[in-house]
């Protein structure tokens, strides 16, 4: 596999390969000088058409710990603002001699389009509502630190599934690793069709929580109110928010996850975010190691990533 576009492309074997390698980079990140020369001489370009602080910093940290050179094609300050097309931008970056392009774009599918115009590895750092494969990998890694296996585990993904690339990626990753997933959301925040999705759905979070090993909360965006998808954030919290009261329904071992940034007081009560069962900070920390593993496998290992179905 030359690119990392969709979590689906990896299959269970590919996911496990990356997670296994991530252990090594967790160890590297724990050293007093957390840096290895694995990608010395390699150049990674960031092409972020959509605002991102966390994902970009995480990738940047990962690349630097591997000694790669990085360059940032800042979209707001570049020729893109002067009307340069996607293809011209990609061909320009490619001509400078980059080994990987990490791309985020508000339009779904852009990473696929880019592969037609460059010989560099393309890593999808989020395309519209569609995919965010490294988020799924870091979520799987975080879960692996708490559970021996995801086989038979029950994971509830709660919130705005329809507009979420995290939900689309995590659902595939979790189920490929053997978990059962229930999507919990108001009907307006579910995709128009769930044909072929390996998940159950529910509008009743209280009925789902008792059997959940993991509750994965999604960020509720304010702009959804303008599209008449919900009456109010207050009503959303009442129906779907993980309140402190609701937490009492959870099994003792159940974990709470969130891709960040959190809307405390909306999808998650402030107190819940700070409970021991909340692993949000671990997710962020693991993000660096997992992205090191991805960069290393695609750029430095000299071995092809296994790749799965499809």
């Amino acid at each position, binding site marked *: 596999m030359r690119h990392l576009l969709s979590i689906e492309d990896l299959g269970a074997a590919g996911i496990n390969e990356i997670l296994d390698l991530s252990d090594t980079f967790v160890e590297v990140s724990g050293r007093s000088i957390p840096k290895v020369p694995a990608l010395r001489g390699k150049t990674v370009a960031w092409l972020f058409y959509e605002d991102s602080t966390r994902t970009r910093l995480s990738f940047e940290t990962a690349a630097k710990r591997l000694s790669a050179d990085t360059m940032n094609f800042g979209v707001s300050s570049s020729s893109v603002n002067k009307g340069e097309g996607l293809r011209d931008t990609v061909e320009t970056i490619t001509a400078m001699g980059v080994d990987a392009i990490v791309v985020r774009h508000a339009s779904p*599918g852009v990473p696929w*389009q880019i592969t037609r115009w460059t010989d560099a590895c393309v890593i999808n750092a989020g395309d519209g509502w569609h995919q965010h494969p490294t988020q799924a990998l870091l979520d799987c890694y975080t879960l692996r630190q708490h559970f021996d296996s995801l086989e038979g585990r029950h994971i509830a993904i709660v919130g705005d599934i329809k507009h979420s690339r995290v939900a*689309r990626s995590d659902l595939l990753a979790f189920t490929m690793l053997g978990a059962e997933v229930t999507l919990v959301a108001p009907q307006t925040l579910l*995709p*128009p069709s*769930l*044909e072929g999705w390996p998940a159950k759905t529910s509008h009743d979070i209280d009925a789902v929580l008792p059997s959940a090993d993991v509750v994965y909360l999604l960020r509720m965006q304010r702009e959804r109110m303008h599209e008449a998808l919900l009456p109010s954030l207050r009503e959303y919290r009442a129906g779907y928010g993980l309140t402190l009261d609701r937490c009492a329904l959870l099994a003792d071992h159940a974990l709470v996850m969130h891709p960040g940034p959190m809307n405390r007081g909306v999808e998650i009560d402030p107190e819940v975010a700070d409970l021991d069962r909340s692993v949000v900070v671990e997710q962020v920390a693991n993000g660096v190691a997992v992205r090191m593993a991805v960069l290393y496998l695609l750029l430095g290992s000299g071995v092809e990533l296994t790749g799965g179905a499809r």
Partner: protein
Amino acid sequence: MSLVIKGGTLVDATGTRRGDVRIEGDTIAAVGDGLTADRTIDAGGCVVSPGFVDLHTHLRQPGREQAETIETGGRGAALGGFTAVVAMPNTDPCMDSAAVIREVIEWARTAPCDVFPTAAITVGRRGEALSPMAELAQLGVRIFTDDGDGVQDDRLMKRALEYSVGLTPFTGGQSVTLAQHCEVSVLSEGGSMHEGEWSSRLGIPGQPSEAEELMVMRDIALARATGARVHLQHLSTEGSVEMVRRAKAAGLAVTAEATTHHFTLTDACCADYDPVFKVHPPLRGDRDVDAVKAGLADGTIDAIATDHAPHTRDSKELPFDQAPPGMLGLETALALALTELDIPLETLIGLLTWRPARIAGIDDVHGGPLVAGHQANLCVFDPELEWQVAGAAMASRSENSPYEGRTVRGRARHTVLHGEVVVHDGEAQR
């Protein structure tokens, strides 16, 4: 100079028979056996039919000549077997005034295909105020449409239909037709493909079937209320086809077209995010494709249209949700109809010729029977010839064919426009 088309199978509204067609000037002089003339064109193994009529063509001139011009689009049409195309008004400036319509008619004089301009129903296609419909009708416009944007305002659409009924003094007694791109925009806004299984999986905002169907339903109701002629463009859903079927059974003056892509491609084509498959209305599901085919077979749908919509390579390399909708169609329509539709040849030719000609109000000159005295607008095609689609080889200035690389069957061999051979052995003559 006289011309004879020799040895073909003649198919028109009167039926199928073998024979030669002798043409003098711009008119069919005789049809029969053993005819001779100054020039002979071989039609052995071929079908001779009236020239095709496309109710839905985007020629892009004026305004987007880098994508297409009346000349290049007209050449593509001729190569596809068309002798008449109805040009959509979403040009820049838009075809909503006598000045622009006159220009288009003037430019079209030298095109190797007759071009009949439509005009916008509303000024600037903005859906706010009626265009000068009587003045435009006087210049020859017989179809009014805000194509690309259906008229959203119910009252304005009703007024436009009412007004259209009284335009006969300006047309020499001919009726005009209002053609609608049926799409309730608040339901489809922001969508780039059919809303359903594939859009959900791909994370592409969708355009639901009901966005089309609600406007089909409204316009049928308004046709009933006003008695005006309504033509529904590019039907794409099972529900739309069924509503038109019922409207026709009730005797309403409603006609409809379907594009080649809506009976050959589905939303699954969007899986690789190639914007060449982005089109409005969007490619739908298998059931919709089957319903469109059934509608063509049983006469519910009156015409095969191309919705030929050229776009430059640059614009089709934008992200899927930003790329403009539309695909080429003129040079592939016949082959796809022959390859994909399981209907009698006479029915198929009716969908491409006399039935659309009647809707366009040009059946005195186009789509007419192959009989002496009629205008010599005809197409000679080889129904068995296999060929491979290549956008770069087309006459169009653009290359956005969704059938790139596909092997199809059937191709126009000669096209005759007002007695002139504008395509000979598959080559454009001008």
